[in-house]
Each structure stands twice: as C-alpha cells, then as structure tokens.
C-alpha cells in the first residue's frame, strides 16, 4: 500500500471541471514561483547565503519544476 490519490479524486482530475482541475497545476506553479523568488532573494541578499535555507528551498523548487515541465509537455501533447 502506497499513498496515492484515491479513485474519487482521480475521477475529478480526469473528468471534472477543466478549470478546477487546472487549478491544482496553478497552485503548484505558484508554490514553485515563491520558492524560486525566495531562493533568488536569499542568494542576492548576502555574499554567503545560508546554505541550509537554500537547500531547503531546493526541496521545493527542483521536483516542482520537473512536474511543471511534465504538465506543460502534457498540455502541448493534448493540443497537438
């Protein structure tokens, strides 16, 4: 048993209101933007930024960016 998305939620993401299902992706994009902005500010604020804070922001930024790219590719493949 592995925690995933249960069938009712999957049905919603599959067949639900297109705007609402897209909102989950928009939330991901918003969190990604906040994380990237915070990282950029942290790195520009001082010559030696706190490495633990930068690493913590990477936990958000790196995987969310990969998923964001996957969402974009999927949308383009849907259009084509």
């Amino acid at each position, binding site marked *: *048993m*592995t*925690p*995933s*998305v249960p069938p*009712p*939620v999957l049905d919603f993401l599959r067949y639900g209101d297109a705007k609402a299902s897209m909102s989950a992706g928009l939330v991901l994009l918003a969190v990604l933007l906040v994380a990237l902005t915070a990282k950029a500010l942290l790195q520009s604020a001082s010559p030696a930024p706190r490495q633990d804070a930068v690493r913590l922001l990477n936990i*958000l930024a790196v995987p969310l960016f990969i998923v964001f790219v996957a969402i974009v590719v999927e949308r383009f493949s849907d259009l084509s």
Partner: protein
Amino acid sequence: MTFRSVVPAPPNALVQPAGRTLVVGLPLLIGYLTALALSEGLLLVSAPLAAGGFGLLALAGCVALPFTADERSQALLPVMTAIPVVRLIVVAAPTADFASIPRLGVLALPTLIVVTLATRTRHSVGQLFRLGPSDWATQLAVVLVAVPLAVIVYLLMPVTPGGRGNLPVIAAGIVLALAVLPDELLFRGLLQPAITAVAGQRAGLYLSAMMYAATFIAYASVGALAAAFAVGLALGWCRQRTDSVVGVVGARVVLVVLVYLAFPAIFNG
C-alpha cells in the same frame, strides 16, 4: 589615561542570534499533523484546495527554518517540508490517465528527488542504507514481517483489480518496488529518527505512524486508515529496533507485491 575591559568579548559562534527561538516540540508536531490531515481531508472536497494546503505547509517549513534555535529542529524541518511537497506532486502531476501501478511508478521519480534533496540537507544518501548494529539475519526477519502485515492490509483494504493496466506481472512488481522505495525512505528513513530525536522513542513512533496514515485520509475508509497505521507502527517499530531502513524497505516491497499482485491473483483468480 583610559581603561579597557580585560574581559574578552564572547565569540560570535556562541551568541544566539536574536529571533532564533523556535524549537520543534510535541505541540508543533501535533499542529503539523493536524494541518497535514486537514489538507488530506480537503482532497475529498476539492483537489486545488488540498494542493493549496500542501503548498502552504511546505512553504511554512521554509519560513520557519531561520527561526529554529536547535540542531534537532533544523534536522526535522526538511522532512516536514518534503512530505507536503510529495503530496502536492501526487495531486498536481498529470498522471490521472494512468492505471494505479504505472501511476505509482511515474510519481516515484519526483518523490525520489524530494527524498534525496531532503536527505542531503543533513547527511549523505549512502548513510541511509547502512545496516546499523543488526546483522543480515535480523534484516531478513524484518522482511518476513511483511507477510502477516500484507494479510491484514488486504483484509482491511482490498485492492480493486486492473491496477497494473497493461503492464506484465514482473514489470508491475519492479515498478511497485521502485515506487515504495522513496516513500519508505521518507517516512521510516528520515521522518521517524528526526521526530524521535525531538519527541522521544514512543511519541516518535506513534507520530510518524500517524503522519503516514494521514496520507490515506482521502480514501475515506476506516479500513485504509487502520491498515496504514498498522503498517506505520509495525515497520516503524522494526526501524527503531534495528536502527536501519534496509529491512523495512524490503518488507515494504514484499508487502506491496503481495497486496497488489499476489493476493488478487490468488483470491480473485
């Protein structure tokens, strides 16, 4: 004539910076568990709202880091951030059209990246896989714990057929093994020792099992919650006793292969 103080100024390293007062303790952990459970519950109402909850929880972990006052809290925060990030990925990743087992395989890659990054904030990934004081025979015994656990899980949370889609059985088994690895490393490998360091052995075991079970709230099934809590407790206890994740990762692989592939084939024909 001027006088100078002969008392040397304290070195900077020993001075606690102003504002660093946050110590992660039991109340904060219970608050985090509640917030995680609420976000999971929101999945039943609205997936975007739940995604927002996971996002806020992850960002809260980042905001809290500069205010932490001790080493143990700083070790726990990356893990507390990683869990909502993984859940946000599960909700937002475009995997709705996959069958359940291939979907777990696709989600395993970003989850593994999250776990690797969370691990590297404190130590190397290789350190996670050390055997600890126990020997291989003990680890093998831990793997065998999966058999009775799988029976309990299958009775409480029967798996719907057709989960592996078009995947052959062996490929589905490999995908399942890869899918549970980051999950197990996150909850038993990173979360449990970090919580135990903050809250103690017993509270650490129960809290990490409850956090693992909380990720099953959206199934809206008491059986699923009870099964997840039982798995969290049993594997968490084994992890504490052996001080290694090797055995519990093996146990998890055996458990999912039995629950998703072997038992449905045996009992449903």
